[in-house]
Each structure stands twice: as C-alpha cells, then as structure tokens.
C-alpha cells in the first residue's frame, strides 16, 4: 500500500478483499442452491443476485468516498426518511408480511437501509451528547431507536428488530456507558419476560439482588431495585394476556417454545443433516444431496450456510469463519484508530450489525439459536441485505482512510 495507491483508490484493501471474498462465496453458493430450480438465468435467484451484487459493489464504492462530516450533519434526516419508508411498507406492503417495496420488479426491504440510517443517527447523537449522564444517554438513545424497532416488529420481522437492539447496545457501550448501567437499565424489561414463568422469575430476581448488592454495597437500595423489578414482573401475565393471539404465537415460535406450523423445526433438522453430512471436506460443488434435492426450503436465503457446510464441509466453514473473524477484528481496529468519535461509533455500529447477523444466522443453521429469519451478511440471497453490507463495508473503509488525513 503505497501512498500513491492510497490516494488514487482511497480504499482499505483489507476490508475490500474480505468483503469481496465473502460476497463471491455467497454467489457461488447461491448458484449451487438454485441450480436445481429450473428457470432462466436472469429470472432465477442466481441471475438476480448477480445484478444485485454489481449494484452492491457500486454502492460500496460510493460509500468509500462520501465525506463523513456531511453524513454526520445529514444523519437525522436520513433516519427520519428511513422511518417514513418503514411506515410506507406497512401501509403499502403485500400479503400478510409487509417487508418489501416493489421497484420495477425488484423488491426492496427498507428495514435493511434503515440499519445504516440508525447507525449514523446513533453515532451522531452519542457524539453530540457525550457529556450527558450515563442514564440519560441510555434513555434518550433508546427513545430514538425504539420507533424503528416497533415499526419493524409490526412487519413482522423479529430478526431485524433484534439487529437494531444489538446495534443500539453495542454503540451505547462503545460510547462509554458502563455494563452495569446497561444491566440496571435492562433488568426491568427482562423482568417483564421472566415473569411469565415462576421458576425463571425467582432465579432472575435472586440474580438481580446479588448483583445489586455487589454493585451498590447498600442493602436497602438493592432491595428497592429488586422490588421494582419484581413489581414489574407481576404485570407480565396481564401484559401477555393483552397481546393478540397471533403475536403471542409469534413470540413463542421466536423463543423456540412452540414449534412453527410452517416448519421451522423441519428446516433446522434438514439444515443440521446437510451441515453434518458434509463432513470434513464436503460432498463437492453442486453435489450436496440435501441442497440439490431441495429438502431445504429457503436454502439460498437464511440457510445458505448449510449449503456451504454440505458441499464444502468443515474446510469451507473454516475458511468462511476465518474471513468473518478477520473482518470483525479489522472493524474493531478501525474503530480504535478512527479520527473522531462519530466515525468510531459508526464503525462499531456496522460491526454490531454484521456480527450479530453472522452469529445468529450460523447459530440458527446449526440448531443452537431459535430460527428468527436473519440473513448471513455478504452470503445470503437478498439484494437489500447485500447492498447494505457492502455499504457498511464502504463506510468503514472510508473512515479507515480518513485517519491518514491528519
């Protein structure tokens, strides 16, 4: 990386290489997963994804050159626009599930673009108000994030809503809020969920008490706080009963307590068989019987990693895991070296978005996390997701190059 090179390309080659490698792997897997679907090249998933891939690259390159101060001043406007779009999807979406807006035959998911907007918004807020007391930072920033989360839950898209929560959590922690404040803040909400099942509730309250005593060194403060959590937990049954039945069902399915009538249990069994039968070296490209025989529904979207596991085995998994791990390490390093807080926070937001999706998606395919419908960054089929991943990578590269501007 000579200075000349740096100037002309203005690209962090590490990030560029890693995201490209992952993206191309995704294309190869989608080709394999959809090769048994008979359709013409451009109408089929592979053709469409190729088109998206090119758009995503262009979008990523643009993001490497956007001046960050400009993005910072426009952050709130961007986030507002994203909220309006999310509202529009609910109003104009198709079918029971309102996630997409159709633009000349391609379907867009505004919830994906909203992730980037939310990251920028939080980065600006936490940077502008870095001197606020910790609890105010927590409450205000959550208040700003909640509208997006609620709109996305309405779609319904629990997976994306979870990603937003993770982005918020990671960015708030990075901005200097201590873990203990975070726990203090989160405990009452957790109580609402824990209150549904008595043994869990009791265990939860004991944990809260021990932790509060340890932190505050004051028995009465700790007891008061535990009492508040317990009081809130009392309402959880009423809160639960107040939810419409379909939402109850959705939550139970999400938590893995109830099996999905549409067969997420079936998907997980098939996914595990696919991954496990791949063995050390895999069955070979286009030779996965699970993938090719179409036992796996949605194999090119949420379960792309099972195609990888089946056809390229543990070896393929290892390579992809290394790529992801390196990417995340580089992201954290970029956050450390960023020239200002806004840029540093933005990098961590992108890190949170990509890392949570990677962890949950692979966990889901291997059966240790409930099925939530989250895509695997850079690899899964889905245009909006791909574009946003590359846009995020582009932003990080942009920020990473800015450090040389001092």
């Amino acid at each position: 990386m000579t200075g000349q090179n740096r100037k002309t390309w203005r690209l962090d080659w590490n990030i560029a290489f890693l995201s490209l490698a992952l993206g191309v792997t995704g294309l190869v897997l989608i080709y394999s997963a959809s090769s048994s679907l008979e359709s013409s090249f451009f109408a089929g998933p592979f053709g469409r994804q190729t088109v998206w891939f090119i758009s995503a690259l262009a979008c990523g390159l643009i993001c490497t050159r956007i001046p960050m101060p400009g993005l910072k001043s426009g952050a709130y406007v961007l986030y507002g626009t994203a909220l309006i779009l999310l509202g529009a999807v609910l109003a104009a979406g198709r079918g029971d599930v309102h996630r997409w807006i159709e633009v000349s035959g391609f379907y867009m998911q505004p919830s994906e673009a909203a992730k980037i907007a939310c990251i920028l918004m939080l980065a600006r807020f936490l940077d502008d108000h870095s001197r606020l007391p910790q609890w105010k930072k927590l409450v205000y920033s959550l208040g700003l994030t909640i509208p997006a989360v609620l709109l996305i839950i309405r779609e319904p898209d629990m997976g994306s809503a979870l990603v937003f929560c993770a982005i918020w959590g990671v960015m708030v922690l990075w901005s200097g809020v201590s873990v203990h404040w975070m726990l203090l803040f989160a405990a009452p909400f957790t109580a609402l969920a824990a209150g549904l099942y008595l043994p869990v509730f009791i265990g939860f309250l004991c944990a809260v008490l021990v932790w509060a005593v340890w932190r505050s060194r004051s028995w009465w403060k700790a007891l008061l706080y535990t009492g508040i959590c317990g009081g809130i937990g009392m309402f959880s049954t009423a809160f639960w009963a107040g939810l419409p039945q379909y939402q109850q069902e959705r939550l139970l399915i999400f938590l893995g307590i109830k099996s999905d009538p549409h067969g997420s249990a079936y998907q997980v069994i098939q996914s595990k068989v696919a991954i496990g039968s791949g063995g050390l070296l895999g069955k070979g490209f286009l030779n996965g019987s699970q993938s090719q025989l179409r036992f796996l529904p949605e194999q090119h979207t949420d379960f792309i990693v099972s195609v990888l596991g089946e056809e390229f085995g543990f070896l393929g998994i290892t390579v992809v895991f290394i790529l992801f791990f390196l990417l995340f390490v580089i992201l954290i390093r970029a956050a450390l070296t960023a020239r200002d807080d806004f840029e540093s926070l933005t990098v961590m937001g992108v890190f949170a978005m990509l890392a949570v999706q990677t962890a949950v998606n692979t966990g889901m395919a291997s059966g240790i996390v409930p099925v939530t419908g989250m895509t695997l960054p850079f690899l899964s089929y889905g245009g909006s997701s791909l574009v946003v991943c590359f846009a995020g990578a582009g932003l990080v590269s942009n920020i990473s190059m800015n450090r040389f501007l001092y």
Partner: protein
Amino acid sequence: MTGKGEQLHIRANRFLAGLAVFFCVLYGRFFYMQVISSSFYRKRSDMNSVRQIPVTAHRGLLFDRNSRVLVENKPSYSLFAVPFEFKRNRYTVDLKALTTLSEAQIQHILDTRRAGQFVPVRIKSNLTFTQLSALEEHRSDLPGFLYHVEPVRSYVSQVRASHVLGYLGEITRKEIEQNGDGLYRPGDIVGKTGVEREYDTVLRGRRGYEYRQVDVRGRETGDFDGTRDTAPVPGRNIMLTLDSGIQEKAEELLHGRAGAVIVMDPNTGGIYGMAGSPDFSLDSFAGGVSSRQWEQLTEHEGRPLLNRPIQAQLPPGSVFKLFLAAAALQTGSVVPETVHTCTGSFILGTKVYACWEEQGHGEVDLRQAIAQSCNVYFYQTGLVTGLGPIADMCRSFGFSQRTGIDLPGEQTGILPDASYLDGKYGKRGWTRGMIANIAVGQGDVLVTPVQLACACSAIAARGRRAVPHLVRAVQHADKRSWERVRPEFSEPAHVSAAHLQVIQQGMYAAVNGPSGTAVLARVPGMEVCGKTGTAQNPRGEPHAWFAGFAPLHNPGVVIVVVLENGGSGGGAAAPIAGALFREFFL
C-alpha cells in the same frame, strides 16, 4: 472519549474477547457436527432424508338444483417421470410399448412441464389396468418412473353441460404467475373453463403435506414420524342452479344443430338450463386430453369449444324490436295506439326497404306490429325515435356489456351508436338507412344469447334486471348445511312498467294471436309470451331466434333459443322454445 485512549482499548479488548468466545462456541458446534458426529448425519442424509410431499385435497363435487350429482371424483392412476433420473438412465425396455410414449415424446413433455430436475412430472393420466400391470412387471427396468393414484373427474349424469361445467387441466406457467400467492404450484390440476375455473378456489380446497423418508435416490423408504403432517382441507361442494331435466331436454333439442338455449328465472337470474351446440364430451378431458383429440376439437368447423350462450355474438334480428319499442314508448315517439300502414315496403331516399311480408300488414298498431313483427312499422318508429335514444335504452337493458354471469370468457356484443358508426364509417359516412337497419336488429348490432335472456327477463320482471348466475349454493365445510348465493341485481332498465306491459301484450299476441309469428311456441293452457327473430347474415341461411317468457302474469321462466343459420325464427326456434316451456311447466 478524547484522552481516554486507554479506556477505549479496554473496551475494544472486551468486544474482541466476546467475539472470540462466540466464534469458538459456533466453531466448536460445527466441528462437533461435521467432524465428530459426521457419520451419524451422513447416514441420515444417505438413507433417511425427509421429503415434503404435497397431498392434493379432494375436489368439491357439483350438484344440480335438486341435489343430483353432476360431477364427482374417481380414482385413476397417473404415470410420472423424474427429469434428473430420466436423463441419466439408458432404458433397455421398450418405453413406447409400456407407456405409449416414445423416449423423445417423454423428453419433450419433461422439457415443457418440468418444475425442477427432481420434481416428478405427470406424463400420462388415466392408465388402464393392462398398462398398469405391464408397468408393475417392469418396475425394476424403469428407474425414474413412478405412478400413483390421483382423483380425476367423473361425469355421472346424463347431462353433458360441457361449457357450463368446464374441464380441468394441468396448470400452465402463466396461470401460476398470475396467482402469485402460492395457491398453485407446478403440476396442479385446475379448472380451465366453466364453473370449474370460475370457482376453482372454492372447489380445490387447500393442499396438505406429508413428510416421507426417502433415500438419496429419491425412493420412498417410509413415513416420517407423522407429527408434522398437515391434512389437506377438502374443497367445498357446489350446488348449481341447473335443473337436470331441463338441461337434458335442451341438449336433446339442440342435438345436431348449431346454436344455444338459455332457460332462466327472470326474478333471481338463476339459470335452469344453458346449452350450446355443438359441444364436446367432458369424459374425454377427464385425466387429460390427448393432443390428437385437442386438435380435432380446435379445428372442427363447428367450433365445439366456443361457449355459444355467452360467447356467440350474433345479429338479433326482429327480437331487437322489443327494445326499440321500449325506447319509442319511453321517448314518446309512439303511443300504443299509433298506427302505421304497411304496404310491404318502405322507401327511404332512393332505397327500398322491404317488410318480410310481401303483401304488407295493412294498418297495424304497436301491439300488432310486435305480434306480426312488421318491419315497416319499426323502420318508421326507429327513424322517428333516433339512434341515440335507442342505444341508451338498449344499454339500460344490458346490451354491449357483460351480464356478469359467473362463467369465464363472456363476450360483450356490439351496440352501434353515433360515435361507433362515426368511428367505423367516418363522420357522415353513414346514412339514415343504417338506422332503419339497426331498428330491425340487422346491420352492426351483435348480441350474445345470455344478454338477450337477461334483457327479456327485464321485460318479464317489470324492468328489474337480475344478474344471471349458475351457482345456487356452496356447501359449508361441515357438509351439513348450504350457504345460499343471494341473487344480485343490476340497475333497472330505464322504462316504465306500463310501457313494458304494452310490450308484454304484444309478445302474448305473437304467440297466441291469430296472425302472430311465434304460434309454434304455443302451449295449451299456458300464457306463453315471445318474440321471434330471423336475422339475415352473409353466411347463408338466417339465424333463427326466439326470446320469450311465461306465464304472462308473474312470469316464472325466460327462454331464449338461437339456431345459427337455422332458418326462420318462427319456424325453427319457436318450436324448440315451445317444447322447453312444456318441459318446464308440465
């Protein structure tokens, strides 16, 4: 955060540590699955993979209005081939002898209908017992072929009603794309025409799924645990408004001729009988029609696939005078007592317009003009009334619009008004002579039989216009009770009941009067009303029409008969109507 670089590093290290832990757990999980217990999963993948098999729901039955079964299901064997296997295998046996299809033919079917290289494609339905036993005998020589039971339609009654009921066929790609909601999938059998198509979503129910274990070559090795199976929801039965007796009679009367018959309740719009001829046998469609049969049907000069009652567009001839009379009465250009003298012809400009009665009808009033179908009377009435009011009146009776009957493919006919004639012949390119022609239902006027039946119903029902329909009730899922279909009504015709009464009296005289044109439709003891039409056309003999209702007071049935190139309305169509009135009332 400025000046707190060390804290930032601590935080970064914590994130890194968290990340590393999570990756280790995940990586360990994959290591466990793919390296330690790989052989377990490999075995399951090779031997016992689970495949989701769609189970087609039982298709709803069709009954006539008296609960007699018209269409039911019977089991039949179909032969399927898996494209992937078929391509890979070299067959040593004579495929043509076993399946009646050559290798190239099978390949062609697979190429055009495949949904995926592992999805079986239906290549032949309705296997005979001998074919089935031959296939069973050579089962081991035929990898990639499979057969199983599929229900096909069975037409158990004497009624043909081929256009009304409609046939089934395999869904096309286009049809799947038009219904993007996952209701249909490749290989589905769907209604292609008639009630089967219009009510396909009601009749087909919802498919269920079974999970079966199959080996790596796709052979079934047994049921999966069964807990995940979802049962199909059977389709709902439908009761039609058709009356088997009347339908049979109508088909019998039309046999060997080209034409259409509609028997309808003017008060509700329910269709008692609807026949078009020539038609085709639905039995030949059960379980798929061969391409040879299909060619015969499409190339037959009688066009048996045309659903004449709703698709034939023909000039109405003198039947049209009824609606001209309504327009004339409503605009006041005639009163019932207006008298014109018919000398057998009428001169307009330099042209002579003849009445069908060469001797002339002499002095006739409106009622007699309808009864005797005097052209000269209506030439003059039409010219006085004017094209605009005639077209408006006819539109209010439903001409040039679809009636809204619950069948696919209805035609609209043509109702010429000034703008239509301007468009066709150019501004001023048409003459008053054309109006005279239109007045007697010739020229550019085209109607469908069902439009005429509806318009005639409006005359019978004092202007109320019931929307014609074929479905009387849909059975509830519990199979015990029926959900009645309520009659629907369009906007009433713009004519007063008193004027309609004059027209009714004219129609009564046409059947029962001394010199009426429709005397052959007469039924002793029954007050039948009607109007005949004899529509000239360039293709030879005139089309014969009859449109009428009975009885005069509180009409209970409307009958429309048309015979393409069948001769005179009074001579050919009226007797058929008479026979149907007799069947209906006696």
